[in-house]
């Protein structure tokens, strides 16, 4: 791999934090616009994941959008694959394709369909959509790195409702067993799933104890606090000798007052009036 450029990770200084803040603010507005235009999408989850994605792509990950298949790139997998509004925004902002393409969201023949597809969209590592798929794939990527001795890292974002899928725990077991310290799972803990609160549907708490029991090092953060996210996600692997689980406490619909913590905005589409109100609120942020 000597003929390939060496990728580097961003620094974690104040300027980086400002970039993350600005990108997140833009992503919120742009993804909601996409959902409003398409009359399709998952705005609640887009907004809860936005700060995590902005932090990863502008403060943590090592990648080169002009060479999306470079072997030593860090990998990110959006396991909650329905939140494409925020994912497509962050990939465009990161330079994988022009931002102008975002207006094709969900249109016939668009590369930006309802769930991400690696075979035609650069920056996507694996096709997700059915839940519980990202972590097994991410664990395989981490095992490949372990076998090859390549120091890329793998990050997987899972929804908290998604954590009910048993396949996650199959992967969690192997990752703990193999001490995959190059693997990080981030749980978007917004406490809502499609139909109701997670704890009313099939309770997850104590979620930290579950991951710890599977052999993971667990950190709890405010999933909208860029500094906290940056510190935990960007921390050198060091001698942890365990995979890392970051439980990011978030608010579904974050940034739009009437969407926050309301289940119906999982895939609710704002009407014109609601959209106008939402965009006014989001304009105040950055």
């Amino acid at each position, binding site marked *: 791999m000597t003929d390939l450029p060496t990728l580097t990770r961003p620094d974690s200084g104040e300027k980086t934090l400002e970039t993350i803040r600005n990108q997140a603010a833009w992503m919120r507005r742009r993804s909601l616009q996409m959902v409003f235009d398409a009359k399709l999408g998952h705005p609640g989850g887009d907004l809860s994941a936005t700060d995590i994605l902005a932090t990863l792509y502008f403060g943590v990950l090592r990648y080169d959008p002009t060479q999306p298949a470079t*072997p030593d790139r860090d*990998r990110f997998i959006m396991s909650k694959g329905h939140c494409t509004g925020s994912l497509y925004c962050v990939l465009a902002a990161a330079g994988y394709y022009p931002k102008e393409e975002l207006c094709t969201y969900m249109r016939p023949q668009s590369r930006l369909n309802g769930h991400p*597809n*690696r*075979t035609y969209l650069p920056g996507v*590592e*694996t*096709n*997700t*959509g*059915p839940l*519980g*798929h990202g*972590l*097994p*794939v*991410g*664990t*395989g*990527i*981490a*095992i*490949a*790195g372990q*076998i*090859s001795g*390549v120091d890329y890292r*793998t990050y997987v974002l899972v929804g908290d409702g998604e954590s009910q899928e*048993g*396949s996650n725990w*199959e*992967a969690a*077991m*192997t990752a703990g*067993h193999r001490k995959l310290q190059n693997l990080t799972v981030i749980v978007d803990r917004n406490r809502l799933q499609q139909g109701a609160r997670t704890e009313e549907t099939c309770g997850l708490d104590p979620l930290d104890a579950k991951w710890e029991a599977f052999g993971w090092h667990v950190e709890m953060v405010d999933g909208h606090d860029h500094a906290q996210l940056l510190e935990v996600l960007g921390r050198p692997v060091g001698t942890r000798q365990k995979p890392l689980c970051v439980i990011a406490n978030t608010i579904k619909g974050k940034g739009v007052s009437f969407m926050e913590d309301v289940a119906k905005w999982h895939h609710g589409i704002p009407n014109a009036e609601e959209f106008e109100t939402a965009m006014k609120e989001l304009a105040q942020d950055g």
Partner: protein
Amino acid sequence: MAEQAPKDRPMFDCRNAFVETLETLAEADDRIVAVANDSIGSSKLGGFQKKFPDRLVNVGIAEQMLVGSSAGLANGGKIPFVSAASCFLTGRALEQIKADVAYSNANVKLVGQSSGVAYGELGATHHSIEDFAWLRPLTNVTIIVPADPWETAEAVRWAAAHEGPVYIRLSRMPVPALDIPDRQFRPGRAERVCEGGDLTIIACGTMVHLAVDAAAMLAQTGISARVLNHSSINPLDTEAIRDAAETGAIVTVEEASVRGGLGGAVAEFVATHTPVPMEIMGFPGFLPTGSVEWLFGHFNLTVDGIADSVRKVLARKAS
């Protein structure tokens, strides 16, 4: 009555050809890894594990993880050969095969072990007769059912060199080496094992040698049956099937469900391109308890059974 399968004919367990070839390939290419679900013994991967301990990934009894992590290994630059009992590999992990491997076009090689009814008495949970029907609509997954050790080794070599998803369906049932001169393995190309013009028997896997013996028996009664080893369930050899239709009648025979397998694939093509009478031989659904031999006999997957189907289809051809 012609002689049936000679008792002294050497028989082979194709798993040996699989692991010997895989080990040879792995010596030369460190991207090759084996992935198992506590299936090292049943896959005969003990030798591979000894030679390449770091490249044998055993995820435990967890098939969703088995297939999902293999897509990840491929993303990380490896060429994973996933070896597990077909029934669990294709049934339990079907959505992972669909989304992570096929739809994602991941460079994963799925190797189904003890396919068909190899687990005989263990019953329908352990039979894998639905796998063709489950995987055939995943059009970018090449499906190969080797009929003998040579073809097994060739399929493994080809799969390692091919960029894209492959399903190789193996059996633990002993089979003889096919007697075909100048063989060349190519997916999507059937081999003509016996020449004949009255009808064509299209078979795959463990059924091919039975079809050959049936053709020999039928020749004694003046029936000239062509036999194709159609190991490539996807892609189909449509040229060979078109030629088969020109013989005026077709019998398909497979160690799988009669719904959606080789017979179904041939019928789809024949019905829409060049309709001729067909008989589709295989299993009807969930099967009763019995040894492999008993199941084959009970469901007519025998030399005599194939000959009976041939006579039946010839009667329809004549009418």
